[in-house]
């Protein structure tokens, strides 16, 4: 996604004015809706400040000022105690749309869009025509006050005024005016954003001055977290665009050594394997559109798709047959899609063997479904989990390994030794190339081949969670709950190669939960790499994971409880559902490693909550019982006293002593 957006943006820049492009696409960058736009502005400036402070090893002290100037018209200032920006960098930081310090880096970071401060500048410029004012000092005694505008022709920031004064101060203050924005302290605005980011950044102090007064989100931890480490990209998370970026930056002299030194889990031995994969791809490319194609495909695949088409031609649509033939023609690029159909046909074969002809005829209509719907139907009605596993395994292995493929191609006389030698030379020449000369097609082939090979998951040591203890401190400070439990899980990987870790926490009682009309309800706080996600809650996999928990099992009546659930997903690459970057794509079927990990962590916290709640309940019951018991003691004493004509108090005293 990052690569795609970057490229698209670059292309667009050349053709349109930057301002026009921004206007058209600002919704994708978080500038949609008045309150959300203001939240995005605050987000960009505050995360820049946090990043700068952490980078320089400074405990962040951040001031946010929001001042109303008119209807939908606000002045915003964000000030930090960071390292300051050297004068010559200011146009770069605030000018270039894709300064790119964060893109293409395999590192856990707050932002992933590489548009940050420039977007803020553009938004100010297109809504008010005014520049941003930057006051900054590196602490050398000179304080610079500059105004920056975007030079739309050059796609560069431009300093329009500059003042220097002497003073002992270090940090950066950014001021700007914006229209088409609005502010309140509601659930989806800057206030809530700052409240939450302070929760996820316990080592920062954030002061907010808004039209309603001043709020301090204080520091609860006096130690800076360790910096995230840059990790080498793993082949499974790699895109062509990224590989080219790496090729441009690498110090390696050859593509093969670049792959070994820049990628995780790629070794010299694996390069030899890669050669065969590339060889196979080249041979396939050569035979494409030739009359021998079907023979080549039969060497390539373990199963005969064409025979399935014949076998099932009365049951599937003509369109489908045509689609599948097209897919065969477009191998190997279309392999993933072809596998979906292969799964359908293998499943159909299974059903045909299992069911009588009569039953099959009854099901006729279902066979016309597209593979996904067909599989959903089949799994629901006929397939056990074991069968589904087996079928999937078969499909996973429908491609022969490259050695077998080459041997068979040679056997069938489709290729001569000389031709093979020529291909081998070609592969070697790609791998021996200077990385800077790598072309898109070559890079694409390498990525495709790497991804069809088996690799161990990458190491996950570079991730930096907030830490369970810190989260608990933050939540205690913010919510004064009666109970809090946080847990940081060990890192794992998803999509085969992307490292991630999950942190969750539950706070119960006190100010936890969101105040509704009928008391406090469950509040879900979502974070991605410590940054709050305020929007698209219902589309977000983090929300879904929280909602999938049966909270009643943990002593709650349901979601009508004073409970705040905190979920932070940490990863070198967060799988957002869309460019808006407010919802994470994970569920039972998609990136389920993330989904299950969150559920698991929540259940662990839930068990602690359950223990706490039942202890509270038990204590309350015991107290209640004790009170009751004393009432019974009195009644008993009265009855016994009446029967025997003895004084009540004497008896009661003895009974109370016995019962206490």
């Amino acid at each position, binding site marked *: 996604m990052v690569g795609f957006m970057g490229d698209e943006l670059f292309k667009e820049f050349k053709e349109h004015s930057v301002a026009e492009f921004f206007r058209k696409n600002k919704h994708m960058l978080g500038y949609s809706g008045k309150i959300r736009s203001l939240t995005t502005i605050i987000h960009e400036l505050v995360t820049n400040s946090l990043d700068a402070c952490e980078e320089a090893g400074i405990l962040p002290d951040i001031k946010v000022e929001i001042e109303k100037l008119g209807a939908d018209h606000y002045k915003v200032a964000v000030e930090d105690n960071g390292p300051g920006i050297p004068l010559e960098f200011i146009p770069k930081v605030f000018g270039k749309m894709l300064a790119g310090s964060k893109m293409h880096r395999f590192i856990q970071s707050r932002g992933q869009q590489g548009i940050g401060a420039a977007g803020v500048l553009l938004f100010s410029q297109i809504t008010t025509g005014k520049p941003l004012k930057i006051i900054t000092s590196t602490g050398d005694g000179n304080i610079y006050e500059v105004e920056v505008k975007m030079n739309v022709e050059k796609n560069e920031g431009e300093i329009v005024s500059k003042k220097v004064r002497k003073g002992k101060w270090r940090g950066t203050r950014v001021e700007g005016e914006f229209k088409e924005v609005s502010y309140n302290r509601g659930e989806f605005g800057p206030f809530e954003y700052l409240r939450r980011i302070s929760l996820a950044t316990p080592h920062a102090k954030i002061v907010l001055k808004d039209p309603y007064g001043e709020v301090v989100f204080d520091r609860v931890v006096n130690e800076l977290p360790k910096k995230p480490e840059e990790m080498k990209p793993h082949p499974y998370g790699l895109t062509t665009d990224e590989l080219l970026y790496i090729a441009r930056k690498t110090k390696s002299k050859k593509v093969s050594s670049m792959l070994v030194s820049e990628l995780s889990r790629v070794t010299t031995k694996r390069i030899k394997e890669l050669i065969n994969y590339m060889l196979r791809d080249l041979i396939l490319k050569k035979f494409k559109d030739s009359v021998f194609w079907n023979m080549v495909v039969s060497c390539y695949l373990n199963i005969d798709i064409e025979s399935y088409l014949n076998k099932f031609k009365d049951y599937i649509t003509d369109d489908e047959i045509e689609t599948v033939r097209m897919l065969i023609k477009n191998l190997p690029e279309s392999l993933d899609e072809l596998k979906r159909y292969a799964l359908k046909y293998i499943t159909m074969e299974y059903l045909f063997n299992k069911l009588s002809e009569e039953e099959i005829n009854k099901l006729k209509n279902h066979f016309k479904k597209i593979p996904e719907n067909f599989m959903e139907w089949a799994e629901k009605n006929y397939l056990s989990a074991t069968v589904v596993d087996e079928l999937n395994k078969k499909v996973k292995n429908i491609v022969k390994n490259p050695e077998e493929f080459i041997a068979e191609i040679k056997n069938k006389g489709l290729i001569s030794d000389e031709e093979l030698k020529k291909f081998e030379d070609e592969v070697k020449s790609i791998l021996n190339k200077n990385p800077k000369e790598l072309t898109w097609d070559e890079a694409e082939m390498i990525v495709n081949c790497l991804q069809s090979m088996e690799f161990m998951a990458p190491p996950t040591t570079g991730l930096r969670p907030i830490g369970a203890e810190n989260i608990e401190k933050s939540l205690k400070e913010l919510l004064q709950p009666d109970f809090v439990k946080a847990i940081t899980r060990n890192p794992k990987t998803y999509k085969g190669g992307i490292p991630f870790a999950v942190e969750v926490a539950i706070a119960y009682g006190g100010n936890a939960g969101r105040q509704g009309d009928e008391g406090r309800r469950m509040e879900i706080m979502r974070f991605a790499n410590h940054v709050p996600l305020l929007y698209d809650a219902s589309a977000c996999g983090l929300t879904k994971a929280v909602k999938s928990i049966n909270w009643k099992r943990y002593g709650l009546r349901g979601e009508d409880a004073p409970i705040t659930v905190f979920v932070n997903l940490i990863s070198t690459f967060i799988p957002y559902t869309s460019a808006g970057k407010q919802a994470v794509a994970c569920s039972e079927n998609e990136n389920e490693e993330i989904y299950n990990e969150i559920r698991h962590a929540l259940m662990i916290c839930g068990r602690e909550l359950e223990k706490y709640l039942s202890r509270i309940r038990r204590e309350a019951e015991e107290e209640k019982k004790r009170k009751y*018991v004393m009432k019974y003691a009195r009644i008993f004493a009265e*009855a*016994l006293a009446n*029967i025997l004509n003895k004084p009540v108090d004497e008896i009661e005293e003895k009974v109370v*002593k016995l019962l206490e």
Partner: protein
Amino acid sequence: MVKLPAISKKPREIAKQKIIELAKKMYEDLMKGKRPKITMPIRSLSNAMFDKEKGSFTLVGKEKARTLTVNQAKIFAQTTKMLEFAKQLLETDDFSTLREAYYVSKNWGEARFDDQQASNNVIEDLEAALGVLREHLGFIPEEDGSSVVGPLKIIEETPEGELVVDCTKLGTGAYNIPNDVTKLNLETDADFILAIETSGMFARLNAERFWDKHNCILVSLKGVPARATRRFIKRLHEEHDLPVLVFTDGDPYGYLNIYRTLKVGSGKAIHLADKLSIPAARLIGVTPQDIIDYDLPTHPLKEQDIKRIKDGLKNDDFVRSFPEWQKALKQMLDMGVRAEQQSLAKYGLKYVVNTYLPEKIKDESTWLP
């Protein structure tokens, strides 16, 4: 006029004495710093054994103790309050129905009962713990007894003086046994008691003045007899040494529910078995053999009849103690039919009065134990 025996006062005096004893024991325990407790026999079949000699169930001696602990504080307070209430009833010579007792508890604050079953249970607990009938504690059943007619005088002391009911002078009506028979004095020179299952048959025999012809007391049972009816018959039986003959329908319900309850007691009140049961009672008809001998019109056995017989044969100590009953029930099972008392009307309405009952009463060998 015969002198009234002191029987009506005495059991109540004994009950009151027992209440005070129990209370004293609790008080002494308390003063010693010990937890007071109330022990009582367990009131379930697991604590009962059929004593063939005595002809009724006896307790095997399993006891449970209710101790004053945090968990039992409520029920303990309730039990003691009920004890106090019973003493009050006895001192004021008053009585309370079970339902009234439940409502009285509403005045006990937190120790009040939330439903009557719990209140009934506590009364039964006291009945068991003290070893006296609850009627002697002043608690009388909700249900009154059934009808009586025959050579019997019922003498009752009332504030207005002595009241005498002569059960031979009730016309076509009958004397209704009250809820509590404790205070009644009974005087009779009858030869035996005939207990009859249905009101219909009772009315027929009364109309024909059967009691006059055979010098017997007729009691209707109206199905499974109420406590008041059972105590009334038991007192007649014990105080005047009268044999008790029972005349039921010829079906498992008549034998194993109605007759069996009268004779050996019900499973529910096992702790009272020897205070309510009448082991000397005998069933004179309608027996399965009668169905054949008198060629009576029948109905097929219903599914629950068959189940009841099979269960009785297998599990009921009473049935298992009497080979005659095993034989009779197996016979009924083989025949697959049952007959009602009224089926004797096949031979005319007076047949039961003039032929069947006289024949049966005379021939002891046709009875069932």
